[in-house]
Structures are given as C-alpha cells and as structure tokens.
C-alpha cells in the first residue's frame, strides 16, 4: 500500500515537473508575438482540459541533436470543439507540425496557433479571441495569416 502511494506520488510529481506552465489569460502577457516557432515532432501526452488544453511533443533540437519535450498550449475543450477539433484528433505517437509562439519566460512552451495533423488537416488552436497573431475572433481563426506573418 505504502509503495503504491509512493509510486503514485512520484508519478504525480513527474507529471507536474513536466508541465512548464499552467494557465494564462492573455496572449500578450504570456507569449512573444515576435517569436514564431515551428515544432515538428511526435505527440507524447495530451491534456484535453479546461481552462486550457495542453499537448506535448518530442522535438529534436537542431543545435544539440537532443530530444526536447515541448509543451503546446491551446484553447479549452469547448472552444476547440467549436473549431472542429475532437479529443481523438491528437494521438500519442503521431507526428504533427505545430506553428505557434514561444513563451516569454523562455521555457519550452508555445502557444499553439495552428496544428497540422498527420492526415494533412490543419486546425487552429489559439485561445478564443486571445488577441494573439491570426486571431480574428472567429472559430476558424485566421489560419492563412498564422505563424508566418
């Protein structure tokens, strides 16, 4: 019993240690609109949660060649559903492309503005009307203007 509790406690600690940041309420306050970042990697974990969703991808760092686990923040389940996402769209192990903006604090966290799934489908992930790049207040976001503008 003790071992079980200790193990679950460890698990919790490990999962918490892996989370770069929990929540925010303004794109401008948390993320740097001048630092567009493209991540290509495999999904390692998905948190389909309120108030924000998170998913994690393993990305090979071009400089060191090391694998780095990046956190990607998106809107909550309600807003994502309205944009045509489904919880099952993100599958662990899938290779995806994430276009986003890096966190101001320099951690390995991006605000995921657009995610390209393995089937080529592009989905918009920014928080609803958070004012970040590409946000035009609609459920689709301004996908064409995202990432590279």
């Amino acid at each position: 019993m003790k071992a079980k509790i200790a193990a679950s406690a460890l698990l919790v600690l490990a999962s918490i240690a892996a989370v770069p940041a929990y929540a925010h309420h303004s794109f401008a306050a948390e993320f740097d609109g001048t630092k567009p970042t493209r991540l290509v990697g495999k999904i390692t974990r998905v948190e389909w949660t309120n108030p924000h969703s998170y998913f994690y991808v393993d990305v090979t760092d071009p400089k060191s060649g090391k694998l780095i686990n990046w956190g990607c923040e998106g809107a909550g389940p309600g807003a994502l559903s309205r944009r045509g996402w489904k919880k099952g769209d993100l599958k662990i192990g899938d290779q995806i492309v994430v276009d986003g903006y890096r966190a101001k604090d320099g951690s390995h966290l991006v605000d995921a503005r657009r995610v390209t799934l393995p089937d080529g489908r592009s989905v918009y992930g920014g928080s609803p009307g958070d004012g970040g790049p590409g946000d035009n207040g609609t459920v689709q976001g301004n996908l064409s203007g995202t990432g590279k503008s």
Partner: protein
Amino acid sequence: MTQPILQHLCQVIYDSQVGTAIRESDYAFSIIESVHVLAITLLVGTISLLDLRMLGVVLREVPVTRLSRAVFPLTWAGFGVMVSSGLLLFWAEAAKNYVNPAFRVKLILLLLVGLNPLIFHTSVYRRVSEWELEHRSPWRARAAAIASLTLWSCVVIAGRAIAYF
C-alpha cells in the same frame, strides 16, 4: 508523510469520473467558473458594504443591525454558491491545485476570513444595540471591518493568481 497522502487524495479526486468530466467538458467548466465569479461578487460586494457602513463611509443613517439583516441573506447565498461552485472547480483541478502556491494561500486566507466574523459576532457585535446608531462604529467593529475588507480582497487576489502558476 501526510503530504503525499493528501496529494494522493487530490490525484484520486482529479482522476474521478466527475472531475474528469468537468475538466474535459465543452461548457460545464466555463459555466461553473462564471457562476463562481458571480457568487464572489455577491458575497464580497454585499459584505464590503456592511464593512463600509461600520467604518462610517456609507449609509451612516442606517442602523447596523438593519443593514446586516438586509445584507446577510445575500451574503450567505453568495457564500453557498461560491463554496459549491468552488468545490466543483476543485474536483476538476484537484491535482493541479494541490501544487499551486496561490491555491494554498487562498485556503489559508479563507480560514482566516472565516475566523473574523466568528470573533466579531461573539465579541463586539453582542452589544451592537449600544452602538448600532453611531455613524462610526466602535474601534473593534472597525477593526473587524478592515480585516474583512482586506482578507476578502486577498481571497479574490489569490483566487485570480491561481491561473498564473
């Protein structure tokens, strides 16, 4: 050794069906959260007016007991809704809340803010009939009013800060 057990408990709550359902819901979480904010407005908004009355800032002509009778049903209603919606939010976020410093501070503040009326009602408020007409209440009542205003403000601030950790 109590900490990991408490944390384990939070994880169990977090992983429960209801907790997960709220956390992953399309609408429920946002609605509960909004109701929580409204309830806080109701609670803090009404109790702070009573505090301001005792400090002699507003409604000086209204006897303290008359105002408190008008305000308390609203305050308690706000309190009830705040606690129940707060528990639902905790259910959905327990494991995250456990490690959140702002959440811990908020719990301590809630404890303190609960002690305040307890002390107030068993001390100076017992003789309220002697001073309820005074434009400015006696210093003990004013101290309680300032404590209430400060503590409730801090609860709101700590609550908002939870999102920033």
